[in-house]
């Protein structure tokens, strides 16, 4: 049988930096093909070439045997290639329906908002995603997870011959994830060839039939998914073994996806860094209400502890995080920092008071994509100091370079624009930026979305180290294993309020899932 998609010796450089060096790939109709590799390996670049977004690639692409040239997104669409991009490629001001139909609106010249909406609703229906997306809401009002659904819907509705999914699960909760896999299998059954990119190696092994490993823009291994395990896959990706990953292998077998084992990180021993009993919490919130649905939330983060915040998409976790740092106004309730009542009117005031946020959507809220990495990294540290502008560029660059080295940002180039880094490396920049501000309490909203296994383990260590140094961390994650592995205490949010609290070491995955979903179904928006 003719391969549906054949890529041969694909090359791509930015200036004189070769990012892809002769990558070849072959997909049969109906095949789900995994593509894995470290952050910056070149996966998204390959995706973008298929999408027609890099006209200046080298090598040949064939679809169903005939060579095609992918010079523009229109070319790609014409040849039946659809792509789900890693970082959202949505128009924030348009409605979800408009975004789903963007570029393939019905009609030739005229257009009616109503017919777009109907077409979008119909397509969602056939894809089995009806009612999972509020079609009339502007995309900028939607949470990251719902935006991800919009992105998926957009690609699924194109009736593609080749569908590329670049880290679609990085921000999805379990239920959405399963729904996506079911959809992928359904699409594959129609003969579409799929490329699936993910850093959750367990799920890659589960979902795909064959896979390809990239390292530094070059092909390193490929084969039947069945012949790989997470260890061998990690070794192929990194070119070395990762100690922590061996433990994951074991847990993976149970859970079907990669994560660090609970207990993989030592909890801070109570006596040392933990705040002595009697001293006020670093951060204490009482009766908070705000945003669309957050109400009556009280919580405390003590020095030396990581507090995990679990909940379904739409349970109000991100809104709560924004409220804590003054980005979303409080309607009710009060905050105390080290026992002193504070009123935070802006993230800047929060920084001064020792609270920093790692926002959930690095692209829209996190990174200044046009500024160099160095400026991105020191941004918060500057806002926090209150030194009015007079800082030597030298010392700034030095700080930035150190951070880039510490967090192993690739490429280690402080002058590269924020937008030119791969997704995972952007995430590292955003995290480094918050930590450099030296906050007493770090509020981290999905800090490991889209980072590779090696870096993920590293970020976990950083978070535990912060706690070890007597700081507090409020960790929001959709990855329950991550929460279980890192948290001293776990809070569960449901419909805008905290419904239960469990000790991190005692909690089980099932217990969490139960608490998160009891009674109320997941709602569409945040």
């Amino acid at each position, binding site marked *: 049988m003719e391969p549906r998609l054949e890529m041969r010796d694909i090359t791509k450089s930015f200036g004189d930096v070769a990012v892809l060096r002769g990558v070849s790939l072959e997909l049969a109709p109906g095949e789900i093909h995994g593509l894995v590799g470290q952050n910056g390996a070149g996966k998204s670049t390959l995706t973008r070439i298929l999408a027609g977004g890099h006209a200046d690639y080298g090598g040949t692409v064939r679809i169903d045997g005939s060579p095609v040239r992918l010079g523009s*997104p229109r070319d790609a669409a014409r040849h039946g290639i659809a792509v789900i991009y890693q970082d959202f*490629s949505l*128009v924030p001001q348009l409605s979800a329906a408009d975004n789903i139909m*963007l570029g393939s609106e019905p009609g030739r010249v005229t257009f009616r908002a109503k017919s777009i909406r109907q077409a979008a609703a119909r397509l969602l229906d056939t894809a089995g995603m009806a009612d999972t997306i509020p079609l009339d809401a502007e995309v900028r009002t939607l949470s990251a997870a719902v935006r991800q659904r919009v992105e998926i819907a957009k690609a699924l509705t194109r009736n593609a011959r080749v569908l590329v999914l670049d880290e679609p699960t990085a921000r999805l909760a379990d239920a959405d994830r399963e729904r996506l896999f079911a959809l992928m299998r359904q699409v594959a059954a129609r003969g579409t060839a799929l490329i699936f990119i993910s850093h959750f190696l367990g799920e890659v092994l589960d979902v795909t039939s064959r896979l390809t490993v990239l390292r530094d823009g070059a092909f390193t291994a490929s084969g039947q998914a069945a012949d790989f395990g997470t260890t061998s896959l990690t070794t192929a990706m990194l070119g070395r073994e990762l100690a922590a990953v061996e433990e994951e292998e074991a847990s993976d077998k149970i859970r079907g996806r990669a994560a660090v084992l609970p207990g993989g990180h030592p909890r801070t021993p109570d006596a040392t860094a933990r705040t002595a009993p009697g001293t006020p919490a670093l951060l204490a919130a009482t009766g908070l209400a705000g945003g669309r649905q957050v109400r009556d939330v009280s919580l405390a983060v003590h020095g030396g502890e990581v507090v995990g915040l679990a909940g379904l998409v739409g349970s109000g976790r991100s809104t709560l995080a924004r409220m804590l740092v003054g980005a979303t106004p409080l309607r009710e309730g009060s905050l105390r920092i080290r026992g002193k009542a504070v009123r935070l009117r802006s993230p800047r005031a929060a920084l001064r008071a020792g609270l920093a946020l790692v926002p959930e959507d690095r692209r829209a809220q996190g990174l200044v994509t046009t500024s160099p990495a160095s400026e991105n990294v020191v941004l918060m540290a500057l806002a926090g100091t209150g030194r009015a502008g007079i800082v030597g560029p030298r010392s700034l660059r030095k700080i930035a370079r150190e951070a880039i080295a510490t967090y192993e940002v690739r490429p280690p180039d402080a002058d590269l624009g924020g937008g030119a880094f791969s997704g995972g490396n952007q995430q590292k920049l955003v995290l480094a930026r918050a930590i450099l501000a030296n906050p007493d309490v770090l509020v981290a909203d999905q800090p490991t979305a889209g980072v590779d296994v090696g870096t993920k383990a590293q970020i976990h260590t950083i978070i535990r180290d912060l706690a070890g140094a007597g700081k507090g961390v409020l960790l929001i994650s959709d990855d329950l294993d991550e929460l279980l592995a890192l948290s001293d205490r776990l809070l569960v949010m449901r419909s805008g309020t905290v419904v239960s609290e469990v000790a991190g070491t005692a909690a089980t995955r099932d217990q969490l899932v139960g608490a998160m979903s009891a009674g109320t179904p997941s709602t569409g928006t945040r």
Partner: protein
Amino acid sequence: MQAADAVAPVWAAWSKAVAGNKGRLWRYGIWAALIVLTLILVIVSPSFRTPFNLTNILQQNSMLGIVACGMLVMMISGGFDLSVGAVGATASVVAAWASGHAPLAAAIVAGLAVGLVVGAVNGILIAKGGINAFMTTFAMASVVTGLLFAGTNAAPVTGNAPALITLALGRAGQVPYAFIAYIAVAAVTWFLLSRTKWGHYVYSIGGNREASYLSGVPVVTTQFAAFVFGGLCAAFGGLLLLGQSGIGQPSSATDWPLTAIAICVIGGVPLSGGEGRLHGTIAATLLLGVITDGLNLLNVSAYIQPTVTGAVILIAVAVDKISRRRAPGR
């Protein structure tokens, strides 16, 4: 005193209407400002409330309103155009000259052609060449103005276009023809923006050019066409300008670019593009007209008028900003 008394009931009624509509009416904050100001003037100034004066305001602001329609489209697409004044002046001079040598229809076509050509060059440089709109249109304004002055020796050109004079100054009963022209252009703009794929794409490229490109939206042609449309509107404004005095004046229309941009911003279009509604632009056009007219009728010193105008703009924008915060879905 009187003014304050007059506002209170209006404001109360407005707030009530808003509350009854679950906040949807807040989106029309700029209209509220216009209505309130008009009512105040109607109450305090007898000469303001004459039908002739009111229709006169419509007549005098139609020209800028038309230019602002073009600016609106360009700004939603993520750009703006500093050359609309140069285009307006050139179109009026070219049409004046042509009207002395050729039939009127040819003169009109020649005037509009100025807008078409300049808009197309702007469009190519900005949409295809990727040069920023500020640089491109700023330079274009210089180039065009220079050519215009060189070509005319800075002297006004007398035209022979009675039809344009009728269009600019005539009335159908009480209704000025110029205002009818404005409504027609506004209707076309509305249709293009909200009922054509092109208009939809104007919003999408202004909102996120990259995402639109990757979705298969023809970003270059869309933005190119936006600048051509803007140029045409400016040239049409130039024809009305010619009609107002009967002569093409090279040094006229220099205040158009900033005024038109201000109108759009007051009407709710962010400088970054991606959103904006025609009704806001219309309200803002009329608001500026009412302010100017009111100040004249109240015998406010010409020296202090700009200050008052500026202050009213700031208040209007503040009201609008607060309205938006209360609007649902933000």
